C-alpha cells in the first residue's frame, strides 16, 4: 500500500535534504524546525489498462457508448495532448497510443473513413516526427501521417480556424475548423496535474491567439488561486465558459481523460523519489555516482542524458464521456495521488527546480522557464492557501544559465534581452509589448513552419508567475548565474545558507521554512 504524503519536521538527526538543481542535485541541510513536504508514493497501476480503456469507452459517463456514436460516413477527429505531457515523457507505449488505438479500432469496426488526428498544441511548438511516433506509436503514425491525416494544430492558419462567437463575457471562441466542424471530436488527454483536462483540453489546446488571450493574461492568472483548485481558478472558469459555449454551438466532444501515478523516475534514479533517511546503499551509491559524474559532465551532455529519461508512469484511471463529469472524476483521481495536507503557511518556501518543465521537453530550460516552473507551477501547487505567506520569500535552486534553444524559443531570446531589460512588471509587459510579439510575422512564420513556440509564449510564461510575483516579498535563486537571475528581477545567492540569511531581511528573524520535495509532483492542501 503506497504511503500518503508526509510533512517532516526537521530535527538534528534529519539527514541533508535533496534539492534538484537543474541537471544536477544539491544536498542541503535545512535549519532545525523547518518542514519538508514529501509527495505521496505512487499509486498502484490499473491491472489491465487496455481493457480499462475499452471499458471506459463502452461505458462512458453521461454519454452513449463510443461505438454507438460512430457511424459510416461521419467526420471524426481525434485530438490529443502534445509533447508537454506527461513529464518526463513516459515509457512506450504512451497512454495516448493505447487510447487512440482503442478509439481507432472502434472507428474501423463502425466503418468510419473520414478520420483525422490533430495534435492540440495551442501555441506550443510543433512536435517532431520522433516525438509523435513516441506519443502515438508507429502503427498510428504510419497509418495517418503519410496521407496528411495527422496534423498539428496551427493557431495562425486563417483557413483552418473558425470563429464560434463570443461567450457571455465577451471572450472570443476561435477553434480549429476541422475539429469544430466534425461530427464527433474525441479528445485524448493526459491529466498530470489538476489543472489539465476538462474544457481546457479543447478550449485551449485547439484555440487561436485571439481566443487564448482572454484567459492567458495577467488578470486571469492573478485571480487563479491556484490553477490546481478549480473552484478558485479564473483560468478554469474562463475555459469552462468557452467550453460550454463550444458545446452550445453544436460541437460534440467525447472526452477521454487518463491519470498517471507519480512513478516519475526509472530504477537507477530511485533515490529521487525516496525519503533521504530511507535511502539504502543502492540509493546512496546511485546518488553519488550520478551527482559526481554529472559534476564532470559538460552541460550539453548532461542535458541529453536527462532528456533521455523516460518515466515509468503507470495509468491509474481512465474515464470517458461528457467533459464535465469526466473531469470531476479525473480531478478526484489526481488529488488522490497528489494531495498532501499541510498545516499553516510558512515565511519561506524552498524548492529545487529540475531540468524539465512542460515547455522544454528535449530542449533548454532557459531563465524564463526557470521563473515559470518555480513561480508559475511549483508555487501554484497548492489548494486553499499558498504554502508561503503573503510577503514571504521563495527560494529556488537552479543554475539558471543564460542559454536559450534558438529553434524552440526564438521569441524568448528577444523577450529576455529586450523586455525584461526594461521591466519585470507583468502588467506593464502585457500592456506595452505583448501585441508586438504576438503579431510579429517572423515569430508566426517560425511557429507555423519550424518547431518554435509562438511569439507570445514567453509572455504567458511570465504571466504564469504573476500571482506569485504579486504574493511574494522576494525571490532568491540559489546557485544561479548571477546576471540572468538579476535580469529576472530576482536575487542570486551562492548557498542556501546565504539565501536564508537574505530572506530574513524580508521576513524577519527566525522564519518558518518549508521545503517542497518535488518532483514527483504533489499538491499542498494548506489549511
Amino acid at each position, binding site marked *: 500500500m503506497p504511503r500518503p504524503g508526509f510533512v*517532516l*519536521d*526537521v*530535527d*538534528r*538527526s*534529519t*539527514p*541533508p535534504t535533496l534539492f534538484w538543481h537543474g541537471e544536477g542535485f544539491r*544536498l542541503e541541510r535545512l535549519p532545525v524546525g523547518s518542514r519538508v513536504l514529501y509527495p505521496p508514493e505512487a499509486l498502484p497501476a490499473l491491472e489491465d489498462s487496455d481493457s480499462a480503456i475499452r471499458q471506459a469507452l463502452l461505458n462512458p459517463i453521461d454519454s452513449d457508448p463510443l461505438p454507438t456514436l460512430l457511424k459510416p460516413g461521419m467526420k471524426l477527429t481525434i485530438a490529443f495532448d502534445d509533447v508537454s505531457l506527461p513529464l518526463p515523457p513516459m515509457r512506450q507505449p504512451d497512454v495516448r497510443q493505447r487510447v487512440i488505438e482503442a478509439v481507432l479500432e472502434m472507428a474501423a469496426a463502425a466503418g468510419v473513413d473520414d478520420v483525422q488526428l490533430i495534435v492540440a498544441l495551442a501555441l506550443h511548438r510543433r512536435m517532431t516526427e520522433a516525438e509523435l511516433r513516441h506519443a502515438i506509436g508507429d502503427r498510428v503514425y504510419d497509418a495517418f501521417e503519410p496521407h496528411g491525416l495527422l496534423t498539428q494544430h496551427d493557431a495562425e492558419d486563417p483557413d483552418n480556424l473558425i470563429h464560434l462567437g463570443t461567450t457571455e463575457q465577451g471572450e472570443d471562441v476561435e477553434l480549429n475548423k476541422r475539429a469544430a466542424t466534425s461530427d464527433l471530436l474525441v479528445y485524448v488527454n493526459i491529466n498530470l496535474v489538476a489543472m489539465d483536462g476538462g474544457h481546457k483540453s479543447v478550449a485551449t489546446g485547439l484555440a487561436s491567439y485571439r481566443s487564448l488571450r482572454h484567459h492567458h493574461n495577467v488578470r486571469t492568472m492573478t485571480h487563479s488561486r491556484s490553477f490546481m483548485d478549480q473552484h478558485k481558478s479564473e483560468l478554469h472558469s474562463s475555459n469552462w465558459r468557452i467550453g460550454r459555449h463550444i458545446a452550445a454551438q453544436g460541437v460534440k466532444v467525447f472526452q477521454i481523460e487518463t491519470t498517471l501515478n507519480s512513478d516519475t523516475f526509472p530504477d537507477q534514479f530511485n533515490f529521487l523519489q525516496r525519503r*533521504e*533517511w*530511507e*535511502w*539504502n*546503499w543502492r540509493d*546512496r551509491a546511485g*546518488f*553519488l555516482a550520478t551527482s559526481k559524474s554529472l559534476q564532470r559532465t559538460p552541460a550539453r551532455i548532461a542535458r541529453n542524458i536527462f532528456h533521455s529519461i523516460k518515466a515509468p508512469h503507470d495509468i491509474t484511471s481512465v474515464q470517458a464521456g461528457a467533459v464535465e463529469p469526466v473531469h470531476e472524476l479525473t480531478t478526484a483521481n489526481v488529488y488522490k495521488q497528489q494531495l498532501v495536507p499541510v498545516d499553516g503557511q510558512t515565511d519561506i518556501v524552498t524548492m529545487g527546480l529540475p531540468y524539465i518543465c512542460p515547455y522544454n521537453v528535449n530542449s533548454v530550460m532557459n531563465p524564463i522557464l526557470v521563473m515559470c516552473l518555480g513561480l508559475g507551477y511549483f508555487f501554484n501547487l497548492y489548494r486553499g492557501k499558498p504554502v508561503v505567506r503573503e510577503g514571504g520569500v521563495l527560494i529556488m535552486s537552479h543554475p539558471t544559465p543564460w542559454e536559450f534553444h534558438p529553434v524552440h524559443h526564438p521569441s524568448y531570446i528577444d523577450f529576455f534581452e529586450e523586455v525584461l531589460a526594461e521591466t519585470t512588471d507583468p502588467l506593464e509587459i502585457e500592456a506595452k509589448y505583448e501585441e508586438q510579439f504576438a503579431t510579429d510575422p517572423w515569430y508566426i512564420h517560425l511557429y507555423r513552419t519550424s518547431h518554435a513556440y509562438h511569439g507570445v509564449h514567453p509572455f504567458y510564461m511570465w504571466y504564469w508567475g504573476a500571482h506569485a510575483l504579486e504574493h511574494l516579498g522576494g525571490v532568491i535563486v540559489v546557485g544561479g548565474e548571477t546576471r540572468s537571475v538579476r535580469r529576472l528581477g530576482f536575487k542570486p545567492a551562492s548557498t542556501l545558507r546565504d539565501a536564508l540569511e537574505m530572506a530574513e531581511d524580508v521576513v524577519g528573524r527566525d522564519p518558518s521554512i518549508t521545503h517542497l520535495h518535488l518532483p514527483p509532483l504533489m499538491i499542498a492542501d494548506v489549511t
Partner: protein
Amino acid sequence: MRLPSRFPYRAATWPGGVARPPVKRRTGMAFETEWARRYPVRLARALVLDGVTRPAVRALASPELAGLDRIEGLEAPAIFTANHASHVDTALLLASLPSRFRHRTIVAAAADYFFDTRAKGAAFAFVLNAIPIERTKVSRRAADSAAELIADGWSVIIYPEGGRSPDGWAQPFRGGAAYLSLRCGAPVVPVHIEGTRRILRRGAKTLKPSTTTVTFGTPLRPTADEDARRFTSRIEAAVSMLADEQGTDWWTARRRAAAGTTPSMTGPPAGAWRRTWALGENRRRPGPSESRWPKL
C-alpha cells in the same frame, strides 16, 4: 582512500519525529539459506570441508572414530544427534561423517546465535550448511523447513541439548530430533563426542589441541507406540550409553544399560562446585601458567 563518514557515503540518520517502520527481518529465523544448497555453493563447500576443515580438525582434535560400522548400511537421510560441549563439535562431526553423508548434511544452528547478523549467517550457511532453528521451542517454520530438507534427502545434525554445555555436563535433551524423525521417518543416529571441551570450552577464546573421540551408535527408529517425548528419552539414553561405552567398554556399558545404571550425562543434581568436582575434569587440568602473577 577513506570515504567521508557522513551521508550519503554512510547511511542517513533517522529523523527523530519519524516513526521507524517495522524492519523486515532478514536475520535469525528469517535468514534465507536456500542459496547455500545450490550446486556451485555445495561444490565450494565440499572443497572447503575436504581441503580445509578436515585437515584442520585432524590437526587440532586428532579424532578417534568408533562405531562407524553401525551406520555402514544406513542410507541418507538420517538425523545425527550428539551431545554438545564446544563449537568444535560440528566441524568434528562433519569431518567424521562418512562421505555419503558429509556433503549432504545440514546443521541445525541456533537462529539467535549463528544467524543474528547477515554476515555471520552467510558464513555459517556456507561453511557448515547451517539452517536457523529456534533453540527454545519447536517452531512450525523451522520444523517445516527441516522436514522439507529431510524429505529432499538431506541429513541433519541436531544437538538436542539446545546449546553448548555450560559446565561440562550435558543438558536434558529436547524433542526436536525425535519430532523430526517421527514426522519424516528418518532414523536417528545417536553420536557421542568426547574431548572437544578441552579444545574450546564455552567462553574460551583460544583453541588448545587435544584428542577427541566420536562414537556413533546404532540408528534408532521410533516404535509404533512412541511419541516424541518417549523417543527423546530413548535417544538420550542411547547417547548416555555411548558416553559410558567411551569411558569404559562396550560390554560394561551394555550391562549397565540393561540394568538401568548407565551414568547420567547430566551430572549429579548438586551445587555448581560439586558438579564440577564430579566431572573429574578439573583435577586433570594443568595448573596456572608459568607466570606467577595474574594477567591484568
